[in-house]
Every structure is written in structure tokens, then in C-alpha cells.
């Protein structure tokens, strides 16, 4: 059965070694909010962060929304579940409305496919959505930088689970060449936000893109990988708070 699914997926994802690589995108770092020990994330922090962006001359442009879905296979025989990848994640990004991204975190695989795959999966009843998260908020322009600040909420609730921030530098797309720029920008950001004495800070952990077969030129696949990692960090920190309480 799984072989059939794989075969269908391969066709749908149009695996072709000679296909053009993903379009180069300006590079981006995704940060998540790490609350201090003993405190939680709340919408007040989100407001403060938004105000901070505006204080460094960020111009509010519009809304943005990304989604991340954990899939589990629909199996008749649950014993077979061990054969399937442990974390199968699907991501939609606002800058690529016609694409849908799949990440298998433990297998270090990332794929870009057409957004119609979601409909096909539903019709085939092959995979079901287990948990879905929405990342949504406002987008700001700061000259050659673009910032997105967003809250993390489960798809059918309003509980704020976390805060993410995207920092994008538009003129170039090389990860290596832009490292210093991104670090210095974060220093400028830290200077601004530390004045507000918020109980926590933004953290960026750079995933090892080469593990996923991704190159130095930034693409939306890199973004998908970053979101996967950020989500697992968020879940870990939420669980840590919960176990702390217990």
C-alpha cells in the first residue's frame, strides 16, 4: 500500500532531476519568542514587539499568514505505522501561493509541490491532518529589510501559543554573504527591544541546510525548513512549561 502511495506522490511532486531549481528568494531568518523561565507568551508582548518595529521606522504594509500541518497516515493496520515517517509536515507560505512544501524532519527531506496536492491528499484519504498551526500577523517594510511579526495559534482556536518574527533582507540571496548583515540587524533590533524590558527574547537557530540538500542560495524551501524547526522548538518550550507546572 505504501508503495502505491509513494508512487502517486512521486508523480504528483513531479520528481525530475533536470527540473529547474527553485526560484531564488531574498534571504530570511525566522525567529521565535522564548519566554523567560516562569513566564508565558501573551498578546501584550506581541503588541510591544509590533510597536518596537514601528519605532525603528518600520512601515506597516499588510497582513501575512502561513500554515503548518502535522500529518499522520490513514492506516487500516496501525502496526504498520512504524514504517511511516515520524514527522510529516506540510507548510504553505504567503510568498508562494501556488506551492505547498513538505518536510520530513527526521529524514531530512524537503519537497516543493503544487498547492493542489492538498486536495488530492484529501480525496485519496491517504493522510490526515493531526495538528494544524497558523502563523499570522502584520508585515513591515524597513528600507531594504522586510519584517513579519506573527502570532502562532492552532487553526481552530484563538489561544496564543507563540510569537514568530521573520527578518528578510531583500537585495541579496546568498546565505554566506549576508551573515554579517543579518547578525548586525539583529543587534540593532536587540538594542531597540531591550528598552521595553519584555520577559523573554527572540531566538534564531540556524538549521543545517546542507543536511536537507539545500544550497547557499536562499529559496522558499529554506523557509519551510526554518518553520519546521521553529515549530518543534515552540512545542518543546510549551511542553517544558507544562511539565514545569506539573
Amino acid at each position, binding site marked *: 500500500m505504501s508503495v502505491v502511495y509513494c508512487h502517486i506522490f512521486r508523480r504528483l511532486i513531479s520528481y525530475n532531476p533536470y527540473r*529547474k*531549481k527553485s*526560484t*531564488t528568494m*531574498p534571504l530570511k531568518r525566522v525567529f521565535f519568542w522564548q519566554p523567560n523561565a516562569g513566564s508565558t507568551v501573551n498578546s501584550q508582548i506581541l503588541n510591544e514587539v509590533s510597536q518596537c518595529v514601528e519605532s*525603528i*521606522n518600520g512601515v506597516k504594509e499588510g497582513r501575512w499568514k502561513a500554515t503548518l500541518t502535522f500529518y499522520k497516515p490513514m492506516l487500516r493496520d496501525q502496526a504498520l505505522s512504524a514504517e511511516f515517517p515520524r514527522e510529516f509536515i506540510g507548510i504553505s507560505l504567503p510568498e508562494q501561493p501556488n506551492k505547498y512544501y513538505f518536510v520530513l524532519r527526521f529524514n531530512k527531506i524537503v519537497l516543493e509541490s503544487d498547492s493542489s496536492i492538498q486536495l488530492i491528499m484529501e480525496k485519496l484519504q491517504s493522510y490526515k491532518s493531526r495538528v494544524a498551526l497558523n502563523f499570522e500577523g502584520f508585515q513591515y517594510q*524597513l*528600507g*531594504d*529589510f522586510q519584517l513579519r511579526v506573527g502570532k502562532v495559534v492552532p487553526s481552530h482556536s484563538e489561544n496564543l501559543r507563540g510569537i514568530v518574527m521573520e527578518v528578510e533582507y*531583500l*537585495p*541579496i*540571496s*546568498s546565505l*554566506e*554573504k*549576508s551573515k*554579517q*548583515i543579518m547578525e*548586525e*540587524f539583529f543587534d*540593532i533590533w536587540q538594542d531597540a527591544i531591550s528598552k521595553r524590558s519584555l520577559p523573554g527574547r527572540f531566538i534564531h537557530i540556524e538549521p543545517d541546510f546542507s543536511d536537507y540538500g539545500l*544550497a*547557499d*542560495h536562499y529559496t522558499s524551501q529554506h523557509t519551510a525548513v526554518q518553520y519546521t524547526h521553529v515549530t518543534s522548538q515552540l512545542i518543546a518550550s510549551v511542553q517544558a512549561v507544562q511539565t514545569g507546572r506539573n
Partner: protein
Amino acid sequence: MLQQHHQQQQHHHLQSAITAAPPPSATTSTPPSSTTGEAPPKQVALAMDRLGQAARLIADIRLGADRLLEALFVASQPHQSSKPLHLFRQEDESMRQHLQDLRTVGKQLEESGVLNESLRSRSNSWGLHMPLVCPDGAVVAYAWKRQLAGQAGASAVDRTRLALKAFTDQKRRFFPHLDDEEDGEGTDTVSKKHRNLPALAEDNQDNLSDCKTLSDVLTNLEKEIPNLKVSTYERLDWLKRASSLPASANDNTMEAPKHNFHSTSILRPAPQNVASMDKVAVIELFFPSIFRAVVSLHPAGSTDPDSVAFFSPDEGGSYMHSRGSSVYHVFRQITEHATVALQYFLGIRSKTALYSLLHWICSYQTLFTKVCNKCGRLLAMDRQSALILPPVHRPYRTLSVSKQSLSQSISSTLDQGSNAPEAYHIGCFSDNM
């Protein structure tokens, strides 16, 4: 046809004789000083009248001058009778009369205070002012009328002053090196520095006497600076290429090889190189993942650059040419700075302008890594534009282009040593550099 022309001239002459007649009688009838004994409205009306006369006289004088020239031209043609001489004499007479009349009218206007502001402060009980002729020739009939018209008394003098200020600002912005000669109040050290610079520039230019042709310059550049991709294009070819950009990193190998400037290319025989060099009008300097610079040469095939622009390595479109503008702020700022630098190179180092410009452009390969020499940081918020930018200024006056020092500076750039070309943020850059 020439005869008809003569007839027309005579007709004009008659007409002008008629129009010339009244003014002499008019001027002789009015008393010389008309400011006393007449009510202000009449003074003003008379002044306006005289201004009108003066304008007509000036027009007549212009026509007369044309006719004099015409008569001279006709006289220079062979086989002419004494007609041109006759015409000339007539014109001469009427011109002298016009000029005399103009002098008279002018004197009257002066006396009545129209040509200067002497009476302006002396407003009479009627609240009227004499008309004023501004230095730009505009006639201000009534000062209060002009105020009503919303011009708030700003005369042409003020407008000229504003225009001059705007022009001076632009000049200072785009041609800062021209101001050096006017700065007589500079301190000794500053003036010494400026005096030394032309000497330096001269020395360096001598060293590069072998870099005269375009292909020499480009070959030299390729040898000295690794990591750089130089390509040359004819003007239309460049437009085609610009529209097809951006090419993703993987597609570089599929680019048309004929446009890459490879002096040691085996694929192309040497004679073909020389032929195509004559038509080269666009030079593209590409530092992968950092920037793309476009330099235009005018005329094609020469070593005279006429414009330069910087773009993102991922940008593409038909707006990408040497007079175009990037969509990104950082490259727009660099382009503006580069335009000033280009003017400097063309003005002070015209013999090696292209060479200097290309090397100066290459100093930007450290755009995203070299910190500012003044504040020590890579990014800074520019106060004027409220943008966060890396150091976009590279000094061009002290750029040393002798071969030895260049290779030294390029290798030290990679080491970020103290000899590396300097970089500054917009706010950290002062004009002395």
C-alpha cells in the same frame, strides 16, 4: 526672387519709418521731468506708456539689425548694383534714430524712478508706486497689485537667488571636487592635502601608460581581481540580456559564451576579439551574490565611461542599464555615489578614467562584509533617509591606481587589513575624503 525680397524690405522700411516717426514727436512734446506737478495716477500711466515705447523701440532696433546684416549679405554676393549700399545707408540712419529715441525714453524712465527702487519707499498719499522693472526684465506695474496676485512681493531677484541656491546645492552634491578651488579659507593642512593630490594623480597616470586600449584595461582588471566576472556587450545586446535576467545560479554555465570577456579564451580566435572590441558599449562587472555593475562607454569601443549603475545580483529587467536605478535602496545609494566618483575621475584623471572607475567599483566587493572605518559597524541607520544601510561610500579621491599598490590593497581586502580600501556609511562620510 531676390528682387521680391528687396521690395519686401523696402516695404518694411517704410512701415518702420512711419512707426519711428511718432516717438520722436511724442518725446519732444512731454516735459523732461514729469514727476512733479502731476497726480500719481498720471505719473504711473505715463511711465507705463514709456515702457511700452521702449519695448517697441527695442523691437525696431532688432529688426533693423537683421536688415543691416541682410544688406551686408546681399552686398557680398557678386553682380549687385548699388542697391545694397542704398539699403545699408537707410538702415543705418533709422537704427541711429531708434537708438537715440531709446536713450531719451530711458532717461525719462530713470528720472521717474522706474528703473531703480529709489521711489519705492516714498509712497505717496495715493498709495501708488511707480512701476518697477526687475533685473530679469519683468515689469511690476503696481507693487500692491502683484501682492494681490499672490506673488507676495517676491521679485525676480529673490527667485533668481533661490534658483542659484538650488543650483549650487546640486553642484556641490554631484561635483564636489569643483568646490575645492573656491575654498580659499581652508586650513594649511587641508590645502596641502589638496595640492598634493593632483601630483599623486599625475604620477599614477604615468604608471598606467600601457593601459590605453579597452581590451588592455579589461585584461588587466581580470588579472588583478579574482572572483570578478567581466563581460562586454554592444548596446542592443545588453538590453536583451538585461531583460532576460535574473539567471539563477545554475544557469550561468548556459550563458552565451561570446559575451564573456576572456582574454585567454581558446574558443575565440584573436582577430575576432579585436573586431568586436570596437563596438563594445556596455561593460558588466558581476561579483556573484554581491552586486552587478553596468558601465556605459561613449563612444563605443573607447575608454571613456559616461555612466554607471549598480544592481542586485538577483535583479533583472529592461530597466537595468547604466542610467537605470535599482529597486533596492542600498544599490540606489551606491549608484548616486558612483555618479559623483565618475565625474571626479573624468575631471581629474581623464586619461585613466575607465581604469580608475572599474577598480573603484571592484572595491565594493566587500559591501556586505567591510565595516565602516568611522563607526566600526556594518549596518547603521541613516538619519536623512531613515534607512538601515551598510557602508555605501568608498573614497575615490585617494584611490591609488598604480599596479603594485592595487594588488596589495586587493589582497589586504581579503584579510581586512589596515591597508584595505576604506568604507563609510553615508552619515560617516565627510567631503574631504
